[in-house]
């Protein structure tokens, strides 16, 4: 069992006060669970699948007006929901899937790329482009694949390329490591990979690795879980991981797992947040396969370098909302983004090989979800199917 509190600070500051309050909120959540179930027998703890599915399904057609801040991110909502349902092996009606395909096709800009909502009215943007392509790949039907206009998409990706080897998120927009990852992930899945597209891309990502070992948004910015995943996954796609200081990155990554509640924080001395279950957790299978290829993760030793038990515990006890859906941390409301990324982190844990140092977890935990391909964060089977479709050998 993990310790219940961090050691008392010698010098309390705003950061340690917030940390303490979060630890208390987590204890309350765990205690509430204990009251209901008697003892922390992991066996009786599980994903509240039915209530998560109900929450996910309730958002697919209509959303309340409070969601208007996501009016320029509607392909993301599709991705968060469809990918979550896919991980939970919840089938969707064919008609609904066709409606999603039609909607995403309507978000496509004639000059290439997907917008945050139907065209016309918004500009094409790399983030909704990534979300739309991942959703279509997850749906995985012929009509879903054909909804992607690959020729104009290729031109859009090239237009977003900067002189520094980065990618701007949209025309006259910001360039950062998210841009590199989303552009390269889409190019890889849809077979739009060219030398011109990737020239200088690896050097740009490498220049964003900080003195801490993680990756920041642009050169010099603070190491951050989201950008670290994006940068690492981009380097895996580019097959240029050797430009990163890999063990140094591992040293940063393992320290982002919280000693007390087992979840991940996004940056040093920040609070735990379930979405980093994927952004940090998802980096492990990527980096572990690099170490394995280098002979630094032998078959006979540890295979998984973080605590899957700790992360499972956090997701199950602290991030499940009693109403269904998952949340950042106790005390916060559920939302589709955190539902998607907490479940994605859960799916990463489920696929990790057992390690001598980990306490055993009940067999039904990993069995509750389908595996994801951690590079793209789509179902492993669907990613393979799409690659076969777009890149026939």
């Amino acid at each position, binding site marked *: 069992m993990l*310790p219940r509190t961090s*050691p*008392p600070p*010698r*010098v309390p*500051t*705003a950061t*340690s006060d917030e940390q303490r309050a979060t630890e208390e909120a987590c204890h309350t959540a765990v205690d509430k669970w204990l009251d209901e179930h008697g003892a922390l027998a992991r066996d009786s703890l599980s994903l509240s699948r039915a209530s998560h599915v109900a929450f996910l399904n309730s*958002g697919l*057609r*209509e*959303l*309340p*007006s409070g*969601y*208007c801040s*996501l*009016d*320029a991110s*509607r392909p993301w*909502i599709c991705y968060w929901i469809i990918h979550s349902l896919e991980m939970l092996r919840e089938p969707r009606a064919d008609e609904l899937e066709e*409606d999603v395909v*039609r*909607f995403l096709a*309507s978000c496509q800009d004639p000059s290439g790329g997907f917008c*945050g*909502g*139907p065209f*016309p*009215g*918004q*500009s094409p943007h790399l983030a909704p482009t990534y979300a739309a392509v991942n959703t279509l790949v997850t749906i995985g039907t012929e009509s879903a694949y054909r909804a992607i206009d690959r020729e104009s998409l290729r031109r859009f990706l090239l237009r977003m390329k900067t002189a520094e080897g980065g990618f701007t*998120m949209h025309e006259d*927009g*910001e360039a950062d490591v998210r841009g590199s990852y989303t552009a390269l992930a889409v190019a890889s899945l849809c077979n739009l990979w060219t030398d011109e597209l990737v020239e200088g891309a690896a050097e740009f990502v490498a220049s964003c690795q*900080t*003195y*801490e070992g993680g990756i920041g948004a*642009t050169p*010099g*910015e*603070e190491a951050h879980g989201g950008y670290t995943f994006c940068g690492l996954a981009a380097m895996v796609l580019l097959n240029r991981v050797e430009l990163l200081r890999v063990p140094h990155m591992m040293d940063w990554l*393992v*320290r982002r*797992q*919280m*000693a007390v509640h*087992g979840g991940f924080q996004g*940056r*040093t*001395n920040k609070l735990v947040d379930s979405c980093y279950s994927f952004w940090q957790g998802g980096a492990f299978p990527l980096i572990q396969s690099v170490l394995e290829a280098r002979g*630094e*993760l*032998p078959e006979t030793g*540890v295979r998984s*370098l*973080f*605590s899957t038990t700790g992360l499972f515990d956090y997701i199950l006890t602290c991030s499940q909302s009693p109403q269904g859906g998952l949340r950042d941390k106790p005390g916060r409301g559920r939302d589709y983004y955190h539902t998607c990324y907490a479940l994605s982190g859960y799916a990463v844990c489920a696929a990790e090989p057992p*390690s001598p*140092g980990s306490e055993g977890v009940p067999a039904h935990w990993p069995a509750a979800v389908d595996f994801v391909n951690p590079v793209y964060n789509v179902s492993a089977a669907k990613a393979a199917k799409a690659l076969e479709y777009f890149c026939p050998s």
Partner: protein
Amino acid sequence: MKLADVFSDLEPLEQNEGPQPVVQIAATPQFVEVMGYFRRVLVNQEFSQRALQLSAQAIALNAANYTAWQFRRRCLTELHAASSEEQRLAAWRDELEFCDEQCRNNMKNYQVWFHRRACVEQVGEPQKELQFIEEILAEDAKNYHAWGHRQWALRTYSLWADELSFVERLIKEDLRNNSAWNQRYYVLQHTTDIKSPEVVKAEIAFASKWIEIEPNNDSSWAYLKGIVRPVGYSAYPEVQQMCERLAAGALDEAAGPTQEGDASKICLNALSLLVDILQAQNTPKGTARAEALCKQLQRLDPIRINYWIWRAQQPRAMG
């Protein structure tokens, strides 16, 4: 004046959701009206004063509408293509003011901060930026966008002079503010030779001072490692000495198991840096001692038990 009157010559462009919409957000009548006209001026490429005002309304309804922000920049550029320098400057000053308010309301929004850059580039008074960001950081000391914007202003306009003292003040306010530690590194990276013995020595002293004040702080330890690791620990024995001293609690108990209560007093950061230092020595003695420390860490730092097993097995991994 009502929107319908301002745009009486235009037909709003409705959003086509198709017969069976998905992820449709229930929109208020105001949202529908503003966005209807906004889509129309966008499609018409109407770069006018009224369109500029309309885009502000679109942003008020959804500050993450990147298209509306992009449209504003285009609009201002086109509107003032033939203006006097004075008029153009005045317009961008107004825009910066609009940005001030939007930044305060939407501190965690990519668009507003990117737009701010464009305004500063036009207005050209970067000194004021540092003051503004300071106000934002007073509310959220770790705001990622504000720090990114600050780095941009510093490097674009070479405003380095007072930055180290600003950063030190923030570290004094909260020694766990990792963004401030990162900023210190950033400043030195741009203003000094960060691998030179003078800088390394001074920064070891700086980090050590804060470690002595609060040994249990990942930020100061990460900074110390970030400074010394690239140049090698062997040239700076004071780092190992400090680790040995701060890890002493754990080293004493090597003879027998610690009581549960004692574990919390042990400085895990000191122990783990000792592992790095000893493994880097690449000697049988150093490696053996590092292995013993990794064993202790497996027990004292149970969340990272797999990592510490791996570190013991792969003494060269951190190279």
